């Protein structure tokens, strides 16, 4: 009996590891593809050989990307837009989320439901009216236009996350602070906000990623190539008659690595924010 038990446990582990290994390989495969393509020398871009690291690997693509293309311009544009979206997202969500969590006011329930409902809007439902609006206001090809659209997309999720997190902070803290003579604003700013740091990080990360990785809205609003963000620039490598795979690979890797590392580091918090937001609804 005991022997058989040991054997089934061993077998179970073996199968578990095999399954995990298969899925890990599947998960990494496209990333390995990007690395591989970015290292290929110009004459081997359209190779039909599968090698782990291409023979005579070279950094030529990276050099060309950084010296011959507008990569730094795109990165600067993307950074500017993303930081603007992040700052406005954090400022608006941290205050509104606090009000939704702690105070009763007319239209509170309606407000929260509306925030949830916006998640069901197809992207086009806000994009098209805003696009026409931006045409009428002559804000096409301007950063103000795109920052407004991105903030609108990210805000509902951010407010829900902040509200969910504030809900977990006991209100006795505020009572204690008010007995000590703190005004509501000082209580919020000095006591509650520091405690909500993890949620602020999530809000910031989510806002930043919304702007950093967005292609379809940018493609309509930023038509002037000097204003292009990274996604538009990367897509342009593929849009021309023959795809410049080497440059695309190098650019993707540079764009991807910081975002992926940040995401992996913060994923635990991101998930708790998501479940707080959805379960408590």
């Amino acid at each position: 009996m005991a022997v058989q038990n040991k054997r089934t446990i061993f077998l179970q582990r073996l199968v578990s590891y095999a399954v995990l290994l298969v899925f890990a390989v599947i998960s990494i495969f496209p990333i390995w593809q990007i690395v591989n393509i970015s290292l290929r020398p110009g004459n081997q871009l359209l190779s039909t050989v599968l090698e782990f690291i291409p023979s005579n690997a070279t950094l030529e693509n990276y050099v060309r990307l950084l010296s011959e293309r507008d990569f730094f311009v795109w990165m600067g544009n993307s950074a500017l837009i993303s930081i603007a979206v992040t700052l406005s997202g954090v400022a608006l969500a941290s205050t509104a989320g606090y009000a939704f969590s702690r105070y009763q006011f007319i239209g509170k329930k309606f407000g929260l439901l509306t925030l949830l409902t916006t998640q069901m809007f197809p992207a086009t439902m806000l994009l098209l009216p805003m696009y026409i609006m931006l045409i009428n206001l002559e804000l096409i090809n301007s950063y103000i236009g795109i920052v407004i659209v991105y903030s609108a997309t990210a805000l509902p999720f951010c407010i829900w996350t902040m509200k969910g997190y504030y809900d977990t902070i006991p209100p006795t803290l505020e009572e204690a602070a008010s007995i000590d003579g703190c005004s509501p604003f000082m209580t919020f700013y000095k006591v509650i906000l520091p405690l909500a740091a993890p949620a602020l990080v999530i809000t910031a990360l989510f806002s930043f990623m919304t702007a950093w990785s967005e292609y379809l809205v940018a493609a309509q609003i930023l038509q002037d190539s000097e204003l292009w963000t990274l996604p538009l620039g990367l897509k342009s490598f593929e849009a021309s008659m023959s795809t410049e795979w080497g440059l695309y690979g190098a650019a993707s890797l540079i764009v991807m690595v910081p975002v992926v590392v940040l995401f992996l580091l913060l994923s635990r918090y991101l998930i708790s924010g998501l479940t707080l937001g959805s379960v408590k609804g």
Partner: protein
Amino acid sequence: MSSRKWFVAALIAPAILVMAFVVFYPFIYNVFLAFGNMNLSRIRDWELVGFRQFVKIFTEPSQPGFYVIFLKTVIWTAANVFFHVVIGVFLALILNQHLQGRSAFRTLLILPWAIPQYIVALTWRGMFNYEYGSINLIITKYLGLPAVEWLKSPTEAFLAIIMTNVWLGFPFMMVIALGALQSIPHELYEAADIDGAKWHQKLRAITLPLIRPVMIPAITLGVIWTFNNLNIVWLVSNGGEPSDNTHILVSFVYKAAFNFYSFSNAAALSLIIFFILLAFSLFFMKKSRATEAAY
């Protein structure tokens, strides 16, 4: 007391102002557009024409027609969410054991979620290339099968976008399921062991019912996200190629709005999508709550 009221107003006003400007106003504008006849040549002198756009969408045969695209959207959503949940829960169950290198595997398996979606889409599009794409290279060299025209034939192209999105979406469900599994008290399994329960009995009687309350909202969210997933469909199929055969509703609206500039038509379609999702969410949440009470 009144200073408190001012404080609340100051907290909420900026967000409400922004939301009013970027959510309410566009939404109402979209409703008006849907009942109007705006397109690129009539951007300033358009007028309300009633239900004309809706009648057109539901009755006039067009290429591709509304019902065909709707059917494709349902298949797309069902296939994706099904595989996301099945693969996600399956991997979560495996990861929930005491295995060495567990957190390393967990990190590797989250990777598809961490990469920006447009990079995922463009990279997979490259991998589906007929001659040089790695998927066909694997199929022909290691499996000895004939190469597949992934991006040029309608069915295969549709399959390609589904495969890309399944790859991208399972980590979300896995992570949610893993969180739910870890909150199940161990005593339940010990009690079941004492009673001599088999693994599938434990799965059916303990695990699945207990992760259900967490999975239901996640699945609802998954359906909404997948139904509205414009990025992957648009970028992998390069705007519906071959010849508009790979559209789901939302990508078709994007095309109607920004390639054909038939703004009112697109606005009407957007509204239809919204009401489909609203009806689904209300129905699904209500139904799952009703069955929950029966447990």
